[in-house]
């Protein structure tokens, strides 16, 4: 084997350190979720016990169901509105102010958005619950979906829309049969991101959920549990969430790659 030049080796070493820094804690967490003793200090043997306990926990199960309801509903709303917003913005003359307003919900701190939403709901006398979390999540997700769909629209050959009209299709049919299928990978990627963001979102949900277990989402549940210390059960939950997120990322990358071909 030929010896690598020193710069190459240093770079490789640096890359290794970066990955270690990123994934070290996560690997530890995954390992601990299979630790029989349940203590972070010593490895006593492999066990699936904590996974069993977790699945048996009624509060966790309910929180997961709540989170799925919130994530699915807010994703559907955000995907529809965000996609239409992107298509609409693309048709307008370039307008920097309008563009900036789309980005704002992505950039402002969650805590600010959370307070704003809470004040807004209170002002309108909206009772808090899952529905208010759904609306809140939809709001920032619209921005994310819109931005992702727009990148897809940037490479979109607008003459195919004219070609469709030239061949006798109206605007609506052109959207369903030409525009939407072509931008679909972007729409799906946006939806996946929206779903992931919603599943993982804590601050806004915590502010807009109201009281009671009926509107406690999964991150809120973990937060509640962690106040009594990190239990191995939480490690098991976290491991499943990591696996799920990984799957979603791979899926969206694959969709983007297929779209690029």
């Amino acid at each position, binding site marked *: 084997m030929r010896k690598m030049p020193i710069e190459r080796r240093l770079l490789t070493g640096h890359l290794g350190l970066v990955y270690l820094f990123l994934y070290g804690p996560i690997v530890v967490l995954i390992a601990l979720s299979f630790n029989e003793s349940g203590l972070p200090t010593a490895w006593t043997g492999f066990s699936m016990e904590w996974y069993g306990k977790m699945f048996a926990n009624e509060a966790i199960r309910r929180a997961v169901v709540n989170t799925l309801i919130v994530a699915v509903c807010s994703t559907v709303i955000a995907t529809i509105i965000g996609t239409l917003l992107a298509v609409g913005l693309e048709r307008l003359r370039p307008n920097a102010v309008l563009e900036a307003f789309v980005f704002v919900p992505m950039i402002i701190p969650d805590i600010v958005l959370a307070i704003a939403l809470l004040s807004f709901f209170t002002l309108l006398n909206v009772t808090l619950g899952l529905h208010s979390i759904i609306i809140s999540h939809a709001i920032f997700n619209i921005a994310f979906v819109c931005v992702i769909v727009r990148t897809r629209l940037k490479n979109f050959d607008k003459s195919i829309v004219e*070609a469709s009209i030239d061949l006798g299709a109206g605007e609506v049919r052109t959207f369903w049969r030409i525009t939407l299928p072509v931008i679909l990978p972007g729409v799906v990627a946006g939806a996946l991101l929206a779903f992931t963001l919603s599943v993982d979102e804590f601050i806004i949900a915590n502010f807009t959920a109201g009281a009671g277990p009926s509107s406690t989402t999964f991150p809120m549940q973990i937060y509640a549990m962690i106040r009594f210390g990190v239990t191995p059960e939480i490690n098991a939950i976290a491991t499943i969430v990591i696996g799920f997120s990984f799957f979603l990322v791979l899926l969206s990358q694959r969709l983007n790659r297929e779209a690029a071909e």
Partner: protein
Amino acid sequence: MSVLLQIDGITKRFGPITAVDRISLEVKDSEFFAILGPSGCGKTTLLRVIAGFEAPDEGRVRLAGADITELKANRRPVNLMFQSYALFPHMTVFGNVAYGLEMEGLQGAALKSRVTEALAMVRMTDFTARKPSQLSGGQRQRVALARALVKRPKVLLLDEPLGALDRKLREQMQIELKRLQQDTGIAFVVVTHDQEEALTLADRIALLDRGRIVQLATPRELYDKPVNRFAADFIGLMNFIDGTVVGSAFDAPGLGRLPAPNGVADGPAALAIRPERVRLAEITDGTAISGQVEGAAFLGQDVIAHITVPNLARPIVARLAAGHPLSAKLARGQQVWLNWQADQAVILRD
């Protein structure tokens, strides 16, 4: 032949720019019509007005006697082949061609036979299941053609149809386009900036400059009798000699009287002569002007020679058939005599 498409005083402005300025023209049944001009001359805008993608500010568009100015693009019996072809990337070749017929409500066997027929017309029957990304540029163009032709439009509009193809393929497609036009009997209106393309394809050409028609004529007329310097310069190669018309003779300063057609009113003018009309000789035959060979290039079928003439700013370009006795022995610095027939030169006023 009767008039099929009538463009009547069309004007289209974009803000302060007048892209199309009071253009009127008529396209006849089964005619191959070309709209030719440099980029920015308004030809594409005019095409889009005919297709229905741009509403004109003034003027009317009539098709087979009916006013279609207000008709939406999707209701016009006119189809456009886009410069980029604009094939639907998510559909197969078959799907692309079938799309327009589906919009008419055609289904099943009738749809299939019409699509197959159209694909056979452009020799793409073997590619029905392919996606556009799996086709070459030439194949994509054939599909785009089939997609537009399958609707049996009254007029087929083509936006720079050969622009994206390499030279060999262009020549092949030129012949193919001409054949398709004759087979279908559909009137073709092609927009192009390529004068050669317009000359070979079209029955008639409208030459545009800055939103207006400069000349509307057959290719032969346009080539032989350009109406002004722009038209003469845009089509093919042309030599210009500035001078004055005095008593129906053309005088160039420092060169004297040059062979020119009669019947032109007195005043300053330019004489225009095509390179292939310039005759070269080693000895004088009386009326000719003399110059020195600056260089000669062998092009296969013919030889292009640049000849510097005293008192002329630009050298005269002459084109000789490769079989011409002088063509093989033109040497730099050699003295030659130039001449041409009076009726083959054109006197231009502006």
